[in-house]
């Protein structure tokens, strides 16, 4: 999943009092809705062309129609076979999303708490930072086998892996945000008689929230990009397990179906997170 780290350019406020010329408005709608659509259309045309030209083998570039057929097959019961490996596409996706949700919630909660502590207490930061960086540098594949040995082959190692992938971005972003909380405001609050806890609750946390949200979005992205690794062992049902199994059989159309499912659900999730962010932190970029 791609996370657009650019701080969501404040979408033109609907009904904002700013005098927007109607042509500009139209152009805005055009850029926001039509261009992405156009790029998708162009993509499919190029794909179809490349497949038709037959420069590459079908295994490398299958026809869009073949992939569509695979999508139908994986989503339905046909010839007495249920979806792929006995599960329908949405069931694979549901299992994966459930794992990602649990893993991300654990990882993000721990990460944000850790970030708050690390940001507020400097010696904790010195102690934990190297560990966090160490963890962040590890590709999940490198340590997944250890998780299997320690935690077995069911849900525990998968969720742990996703949590471990989600924790560092959340923690790092929160730490940075807390450290960057405006000292002037903190001191003003202190001078007005606020206690240390009150300063953290009323000044530090609100000013750190926008950046924390970016961290959370990054964390979800990290977790999501680790699903294939997490579902390497006993991953069916699961969209990552599906991709892995299909690639073991050189079954490119199903692999592409899985990739599209992961990518599109990733886009949807990121969109949801952006929406939540706009609601939860309306003061982003305004302090």
């Amino acid at each position: 999943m791609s996370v657009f780290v650019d701080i969501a350019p404040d979408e033109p406020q609907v009904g904002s009092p700013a005098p927007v010329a109607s042509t500009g408005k139209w152009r805005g709608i055009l850029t926001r809705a039509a261009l992405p659509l156009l790029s998708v259309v162009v993509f499919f045309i190029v794909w179809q062309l490349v497949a038709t030209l037959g420069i590459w083998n079908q295994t490398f570039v299958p026809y869009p129609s073949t992939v569509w057929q695979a999508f139908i097959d994986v989503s339905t019961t046909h010839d007495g076979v249920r979806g792929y490996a006995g599960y329908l596409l949405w069931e694979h996706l549901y299992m994966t999303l459930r794992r990602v949700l649990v893993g991300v919630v654990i990882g993000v909660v721990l990460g944000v708490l850790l970030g708050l502590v690390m940001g507020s207490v400097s010696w904790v930061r010195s102690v934990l930072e190297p560990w966090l960086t160490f963890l962040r540098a590890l590709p999940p594949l490198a340590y997944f086998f250890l998780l299997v040995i320690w935690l077995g082959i069911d849900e525990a190692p998968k969720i742990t892996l996703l949590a471990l992938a989600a924790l560092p971005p959340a923690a790092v972003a929160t730490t940075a945000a807390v450290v960057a909380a405006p000292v002037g405001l903190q001191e003003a609050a202190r001078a007005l008689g606020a206690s240390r806890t009150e300063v953290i609750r009323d000044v530090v946390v609100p000013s750190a929230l926008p950046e924390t949200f970016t961290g959370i979005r990054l964390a979800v992205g990290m977790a999501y990009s680790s699903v294939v690794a997490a579902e390497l062992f006993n991953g069916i049902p699961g969209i990552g397990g599906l991709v892995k199994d299909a690639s073991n059989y050189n079954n490119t159309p199903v692999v592409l179906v899985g990739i599209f499912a992961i990518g599109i659900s990733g886009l949807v999730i990121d969109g949801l997170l952006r929406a939540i962010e706009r609601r939860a932190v309306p003061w982003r970029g305004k302090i």
Partner: protein
Amino acid sequence: MRFKSVFAALAVATMALAGCSVDQPGQDADKPTIRIGYQTFPSGDLVVKNNRWLEEALPDYNIKWVKFDSGADVNTAFIAKELDFGALGSSPVARGLSAPLNIPYKVALVLDVAGDNEALVARDGTGIDTIAQLKGKRVATPFASTAHYSLLAALAQNGLSPSDVQLIDLQPQAILAAWDRGDIDAAYTWLPTLDDLRKSGKDLITSRQLAKDGKPTLDLGVVSDQFANEHPDIVDVWRQQEARALTLIKDDPAAAAKAVAAEIGLSPEQTEGQIKQGVFLTPEQVGSPEWLGSDGKPGNIAVNLQSASQFLADQKQIPSAASLETFQDAIYTKGLPGVLSQ
């Protein structure tokens, strides 16, 4: 200006790094290169590679050995036209020769036949003594492997369908971990993991038995059609060196084990144990009707591959099984059986 110099420095550094990549010694840019994909299961392939027999027999060529971890990867490399020879299991070969892959390669050698080196083992304490008792139990195997094929064949023999047991996709190392933790009741896998499982479990069936029952799994040597057409002489040399390795395995297993051990990183003793549990054909057997057959008369192996193809079709991994003729056409019988004994 500064940008440009940084860029130039980067470009030079990249090229310098690319120039000093760690590559195999003895590659000469002037000579044509033969590309061979191999895997690390014990076989004559590794004996040939370790003893550099092919390099000696073909001094006018570069021999490039590329290691692969699965038959699916070897198939992909063949599709990409990156390989001339390859070693892979019968199941990936059946897949490669069937639609939609239709990889243009031919089976030119039987590297080994799975024997006691692949087996279905039940864990002590689960009370499982027969395959029929596996019903409802958790059985692990690496999916898309020859062991997966054998497991389903063994279940079918005992009137069980794949959905009667809980099949779990695990690689051998993970099987061992799950086994020790008690997460699985049985597993179909291969050496060296298999020996560890046998310490706390018992064999329900081995691939040797399944081969007797008409469901053998094999490791095969394949050659791309294009290469075989252009350089039949080299294919002959390759087959002769592989035959030499098969003979060495038969006559002096200790020497063969030493060469294989050097390639797979186990001790020679362990490797010799592994080789003894596999089935290695003699060059005469390879050219017999039971296996590859002789020039113009493809042997029984085509039937095996066709049944593996049918298995994949039943698994819904390919749209439909390829015909027997397809597999008979894909057996490279040129000069067999005489060419192997030259």
